[in-house]
């Protein structure tokens, strides 16, 4: 018999946990849900836009009643649970419905705090928490003129803004002098107040509510200083209290919230709890991002997978008031040990403050322009050392070398602005998918709209649209899992591969409890790379876990044919090679012969069966694969250098050829390109390559971490060396460190930014022993790797099945 899971609370955290559970263990439990609100599960966050008239209740439903039916979940709507009996393992609702449980999940959220001043229970005094409150407010806008909001925090201001949209006169009463003081410092708080005043909002700052007056229905508010105002409606938005009453009554240990451990269990191990009602490591949360992280971990343990811990969250906030851009995260006040960076431009309404401690970003407040919020937030959560970014930090990620993409102001973008150039997805399509499909994460948006699912250059924009549509940051637990088949991030998987000596994809999946039988394309390709990079002597290649290009050693084209690009060492060629290429082109009727961007010649539109024959002809002329199709070393571009050029300082062409001989046929986390320029005029574009050499009179400048491509990044200067031998050694060490450290599909540019330039300098430049160690490992691996895959297939009988159909039926 299936075990019984009962969920108390049909809200955002509880149902998210159920959804996560259904994803990983769909048949494990008979699930019953109690919810005291008379609806399915809705997106509480979007109550503010509903109040402002931008959305309807239908727009914000996350799970309609039919979803529960489709998933065989028994839902008791409008049923409030009044008792948990832990001995008999039952819960009972106020109307007497009794359900048994094997496991119980308490997700009762929180209740709005109502200040117990005289008159707080009068008609027309409400909170802002659920659909009913919104209905009450909307009704009031039809009959009355004046609303008072007590509390100038996030909720209060969103309520005030909503009421104002309906033409109400709104006064916000706030106890202290700064609005949203839990998210804003005084400067940004003042700027916010000014903008809201310009929109027509009234404020009573530093005012303590003493009494709510009126005869039956509210008519006014009196303050401690004796003054008063007239009003027709009072919305109390002064804070929330975890809803722990039920848990307390059942004898579960509670402090401010229901106390849970890192697996979201309460003191009764059969009882889990997630959401705003929870207290974890001393913290309670009032935003959905952490609740969703809790839900995920909780589901994992309910499914008895036993992996994944919830270790707390850093949160960020945005205010969902149209026309006001505000972002705040972490510790934005700071203390004696922290430093601040501030940028302020009062006349254009811009303010930015960053708080830094021990070389880490710990807090940020942005006002007026929040597009960098996601990046700062990412830096905070990853705890990245910001030493190398210091001088650019305040200006934002777009100043790190992004060209073309990004930089648009989300709010100003019209719905028909194209966001994803690859798939032709406009802003409006994305917003619509987020609201109608109830999407929360980048992955979901990708799946539904394809936006940012191809080249990924618009990922930042899509994330911003997600945030500006939903009003907060939902994404990302601290380290993203490698793929949906596991909870482990790349680093942990790589460490396990090394420490447990896992030499095959299968061994990794078994040892690390993969959640799918044979993985997905994402993890298969990554793991195939990881096991070989760690165990180049022992690991077997799994061709079925390689992308077709690497399996076929040619690039698949849109029509299913392939391209052939032979290697031209250092961009040099010979009449014999050119003749061989010409012959091949003629013999196999190749229509297009192209001079590629990588200084070589490409043949396009080749049928797969013909590939081995072409390769054989090219092999006979001494040519090998150019690996133009692989996550591999691609090309070494060179200029003519000292041999011919009047400015040349060294023999850049010969050095390029040596580098190509050293590095060809090496597999990488991503494509890898090199270049050597003969002087700082840099005709070979060495400063946008993964590894670039600029020859100078005294020797060689070594540059790393550049690329052209989607997001241009110029290299960082690693160091200067004196001899060609050193160039080769540093290059080998750099490549090997990259190969063993970077995530699969992470090119050197983002890798350098993620781990920091200093770390690479430390290993490749400053520590001679490490440099030699990595260079040596590279050479060892190359001994095995440097065989021409074309020759193996053209004449060596490897993978013959790949290039022939199994059967031809002629009738």
């Amino acid at each position: 018999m299936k075990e019984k899971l009962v969920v108390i609370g049909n809200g955002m955290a509880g149902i998210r946990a159920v959804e996560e559970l259904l994803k990983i263990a769909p048949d494990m439990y008979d699930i019953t849900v109690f919810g005291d609100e008379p609806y399915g599960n809705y997106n509480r966050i979007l109550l503010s836009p509903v109040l402002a008239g931008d959305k309807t209740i239908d727009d914000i439903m996350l799970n309609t009643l039919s979803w529960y039916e489709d998933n065989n979940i028994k839902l008791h709507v409008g049923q409030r649970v009044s008792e948990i009996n832990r001995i008999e393992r039952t819960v009972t609702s106020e109307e007497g419905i009794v359900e048994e449980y094997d496991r119980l999940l308490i997700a009762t959220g929180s209740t709005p705090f109502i200040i117990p001043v005289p008159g707080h229970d009068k008609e027309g005094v409400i909170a802002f928490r659920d659909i009913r409150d919104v209905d009450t407010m909307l009704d009031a806008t039809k009959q009355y003129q004046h609303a008072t909001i007590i509390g100038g925090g996030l909720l209060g201001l969103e309520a005030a803004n909503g009421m104002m949209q309906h033409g109400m006169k709104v006064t916000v009463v706030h106890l202290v002098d700064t609005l949203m003081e839990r998210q804003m410092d005084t400067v940004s708080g003042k700027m916010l107040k000014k903008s809201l005043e310009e929109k027509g909002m009234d404020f009573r700052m530093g005012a303590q509510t003493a009494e709510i007056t009126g005869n039956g229905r509210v008519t006014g508010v009196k303050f401690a200083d004796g003054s008063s105002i007239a009003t027709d409606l009072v919305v109390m938005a002064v804070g929330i209290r975890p809803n722990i009453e039920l848990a307390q009554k059942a004898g579960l240990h509670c402090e401010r919230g229901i106390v849970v451990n890192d697996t979201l269990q309460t003191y009764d191990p059969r009882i889990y709890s997630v959401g705003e009602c929870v207290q974890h490591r001393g913290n309670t949360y009032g935003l959905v991002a952490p609740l969703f992280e809790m839900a995920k971990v909780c589901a994992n343990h309910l499914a008895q997978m036993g992996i994944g811990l919830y270790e707390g969250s850093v949160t960020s906030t945005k205010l969902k008031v149209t026309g006001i851009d505000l972002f705040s995260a972490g510790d934005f006040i700071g203390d004696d040990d922290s430093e601040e960076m501030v940028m302020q431009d009062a006349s254009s309404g811009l303010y930015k403050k960053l708080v830094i401690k021990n070389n880490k970003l710990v807090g940020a407040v942005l006002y007026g322009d929040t597009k960098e919020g996601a990046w700062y937030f990412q830096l905070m959560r990853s705890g990245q050392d910001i030493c190398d970014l210091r001088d650019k930090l305040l200006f934002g990620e777009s100043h790190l070398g992004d060209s073309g993409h990004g930089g648009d102001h989300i709010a100003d973008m019209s719905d028909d602005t194209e966001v994803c150039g690859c798939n032709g997805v406009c802003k409006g399509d994305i917003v619509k998918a987020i609201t109608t499909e109830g999407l929360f994460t980048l992955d979901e948006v990708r799946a539904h709209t394809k936006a940012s699912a191809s080249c990924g250059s618009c990922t930042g924009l899509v994330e911003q649209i997600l945030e500006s549509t939903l009003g907060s940051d939902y994404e990302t637990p601290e380290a993203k899992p490698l793929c949906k088949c596991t909870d482990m991030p790349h680093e942990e998987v790589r460490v396990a591969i090394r420490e447990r000596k896992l030499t095959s994809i299968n061994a990794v999946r078994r040892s690390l409890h993969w959640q799918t039988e044979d993985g997905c394309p994402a993890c298969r390709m990554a793991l195939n790379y990881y096991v070989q990079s760690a165990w180049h002597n022992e690991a077997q290649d799994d061709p079925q876990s390689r992308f077709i290009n690497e399996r076929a050693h040619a690039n698949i084209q849109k029509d299913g044919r392939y391209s052939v690009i032979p290697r031209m060492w250092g961009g040099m060629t010979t009449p014999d090679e050119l003749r061989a290429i010409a012959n091949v082109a003629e013999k196999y009727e190749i229509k297009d012969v192209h001079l590629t961007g990588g200084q070589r010649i490409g043949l396009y539109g080749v049928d797969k069966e013909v590939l081995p024959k072409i390769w054989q002809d090219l092999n006979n002329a001494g040519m090998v694969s150019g690996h133009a199709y692989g996550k591999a070393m691609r090309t070494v571009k060179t200029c003519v250098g000292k041999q011919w050029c009047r400015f040349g300082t060294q023999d850049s062409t010969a050095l390029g050829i040596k580098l190509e001989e050293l590095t060809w046929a090496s597999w990488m986390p991503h494509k890898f390109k090199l270049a050597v320029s003969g002087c700082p005029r840099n005709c070979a574009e060495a400063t946008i390559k993964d590894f670039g050499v600029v020859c100078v009179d005294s020797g060689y400048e070594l540059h790393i971490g550049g690329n052209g491509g989607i997001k241009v990044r110029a290299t960082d200067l690693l160091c200067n060396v004196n001899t060609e031998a050193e160039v080769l050694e540093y290059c080998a060490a750099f490549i090997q460190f990259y190969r063993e450290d970077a995530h699969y599909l992470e090119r050197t540019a983002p890798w350098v930014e993620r781990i920091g330039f200093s770390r690479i300098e430390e290993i490749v430049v400053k520590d001679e022993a490490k440099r030699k160690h990595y260079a040596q490992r590279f050479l060892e691996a190359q001994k095995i790797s440097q065989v021409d895959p074309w020759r193996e297939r053209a004449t060596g009988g490897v993978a013959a099945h790949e290039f022939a159909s199994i059967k031809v039926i002629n009738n």
Partner: protein
Amino acid sequence: MSNWIEVGQLEEIPQQGSRIVKTKDYDIAVFRTINDEVFAIKDACPHKQGQLSQGIVHGKKVTCPLHNWTISLESGEALGPDEGCTNVFVAKVENGLVSIELV
């Protein structure tokens, strides 16, 4: 009218891979899963006719090499939010011999 065609030995198709059967009008991709189950579908992705035979096979699904749609080998339907369907043929293995039924 049923028309079973012998395609070849199971061993000739790599696990988690596929081979192509060419017919006069179109190609059929014959897949072999990690558990040696065999499926046959028209070798044309419902999105833009990508060759599914060249994709990555995982579970009873294949991910198209061109734009990453994932297609069910059982139903020929695109999975997830993508919509579209390609023809499915019945396939069987007897004594290590793979056959498909053409209609």
